[in-house]
């Protein structure tokens, strides 16, 4: 049962009302439970930010580390003791900005980790500053006239850097997300599951998604299934504005590190 994995004495958690991170935590715990992991041989790691508070609510060994470094810590844990199952919660600021180097190198090494990136397009905990994934034109406290930088595509980055399993879903697609995390856990090597999620307090408030439901509607209407798009798109056709592909992007068997020997 998913409830068994929670530290009930610490709930309710610090997330704002309608925050997508809680949903993602549910889906990951559901997947971890389905994968048959034990609480005593699973470790959750995280960096800094809203997303990174999640391991503190899970009743396992957990490391809540420094900003952006979660993947480097996870490398140490997994390489030193490959029998542990290691899951990393991270945010877009963590993985795309300050921890970008650790991210591409963890993908390159293809260490057996499952990384769930809660991408809310903003630095939520510090009050809504723009992040490397803030879409062009969106408002934040550090992009008051609209973001002008081109955002990172984390999925493309992970595929190019060599991860074994890469998928993208949203906090609206809970069953597909659970399935993707489960696939990530079962795939040896580096798995990245990017989850687009809502931040009604910092992102929504400034970008006309004041209610959590509004952003859920946006996620539902702008998420384009990758397989469907590949089937139906005319040659050269581009995705409609603000839309993004969801689905499984890569599943392959490149050489991996940190897998426990069967012997």
């Amino acid at each position: 049962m998913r409830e068994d994995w929670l530290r009930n004495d610490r709930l309710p958690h610090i997330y704002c009302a309608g925050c997508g991170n809680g949903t993602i935590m549910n889906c990951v715990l559901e997947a971890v439970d389905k994968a048959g992991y034990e609480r005593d041989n699973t470790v959750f790691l995280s960096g800094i930010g809203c997303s990174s508070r999640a391991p503190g609510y899970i009743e396992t060994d957990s490391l809540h580390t420094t900003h952006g470094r979660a993947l480097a810590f996870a490398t140490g844990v997994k390489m030193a003791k490959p029998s542990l199952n290691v899951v990393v919660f991270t945010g877009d600021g963590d993985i795309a900005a300050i921890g970008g180097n650790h991210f591409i190198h963890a993908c390159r090494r293809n260490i057996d980790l499952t990384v769930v990136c809660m991408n809310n397009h903003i630095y939520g905990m510090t009050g809504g500053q723009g992040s490397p994934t803030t879409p062009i034109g969106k408002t934040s406290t550090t992009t008051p006239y609209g973001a002008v930088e081109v955002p990172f595509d984390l999925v493309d980055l992970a595929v190019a850097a060599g991860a074994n399993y890469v998928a993208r879903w949203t906090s609206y697609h809970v069953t597909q997300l659970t399935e993707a995390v489960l696939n990530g856990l079962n795939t040896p090597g580096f798995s990245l599951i990017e989850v687009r999620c809502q931040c009604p307090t910092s992102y929504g408030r400034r970008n006309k998604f004041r209610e959590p439901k509004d952003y859920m509607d946006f996620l539902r209407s702008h998420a384009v299934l990758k397989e469907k798009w590949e089937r139906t798109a005319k040659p050269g056709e581009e995705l409609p504005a603000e839309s993004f592909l969801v689905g499984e992007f890569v599943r392959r068997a490149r050489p991996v590190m940190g897998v426990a020997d069967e012997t």
Partner: protein
Amino acid sequence: MQGNIASAEGALAAGCNFFAGYPITPSTEIAEHMAARLPKRKGACFIQMEDEIASMAAIIGAAWTGARAMTATSGPGFSLMMENIGYAVMSETPCVIVNVQRGGPSTGQPTMAAQGDMMQVRFGSHGDYSIIALCPSSVQECFDLTAKAFNLADQFRTPVFLMADEVIGHMRERIDLPDEVMVIRPRPLPEGVLPFTPVDNGVPGFASFGTGRRIPVTGLTHNEQGYPDTTNPARHESLVRRLVSKIEDARHEIADFQVVNEDAAFIFVCYGAPVRTVQEVVDRRRVPDTGYLKLRIVWPFPEKLLQRFTNVRAFIVPEMNLGMISREIERHVQVPVIPIGKIGGELHTPEELIEAVHFAGGDA
């Protein structure tokens, strides 16, 4: 054997089974030697990380799985590690960091010796904390002190630093390799005791990941359970005071030093490479009325040691920086303290030290 290799051998003898590093002159030989030796050990791992930040992070992660973890670096990499050194202090992670010091600031002199990181190692990360720093002055001590560093790290649950320098790291000397070195592992976390409750002189017991204790480790101010509690001033104060006092209170107990000519009027206080020049002046040339205090553990600073020199007229402190430990000594004594800071990468000459004795009023 070379100092850096001796350091790696000392770590291996102490049971080091995880090394994460990033190449940097003049510490590279340690990583190279570990890369050759560790993969042949069962359950051991060598990994070359993408930078020093990641190296430090990886050894903390490995230490929490119960590994004896180590990294080696030099000044510029040491600066990068500061962030996660603070994390290791706050989360009370035992680990060993070797810093083969070179001339700074910035890239400075990659192939020349210095002792310019002696204050950075003590105060480099933000916030109040205390650490243990050892200084070898010979190849034999590189071996012995590295092995000892692992024991101190486990005993006090803190990062421990081996502050070597380029001269010691690249020096070649004959050493005696003991058949066995003493190994002290961390006190186990007793059943039913919370993971951050101090059990012995402010040090909590240690349980590694995967042993069923389900420890939440965080760099935030936390309570005994490990849960973040950041807005309670009393909690923060008691936690940080404990982190500092568990090391500072033990400073005389763990002090490791050598005293020669205790009754002399002019006492050299030295650590690291300058010890060799001091030994030349005092032990071989036998300059009258001189003696020395050689510190193997510099931080926490054992200030009571200075009181044993009852005849002292001046302390002379040769260092390969512009006066770092000399200031620490000045805080504790009434007699004059004469710093002899030498930077540029070369050792002090005996003549320079003798001149300092003259300056202090000696008739050497």
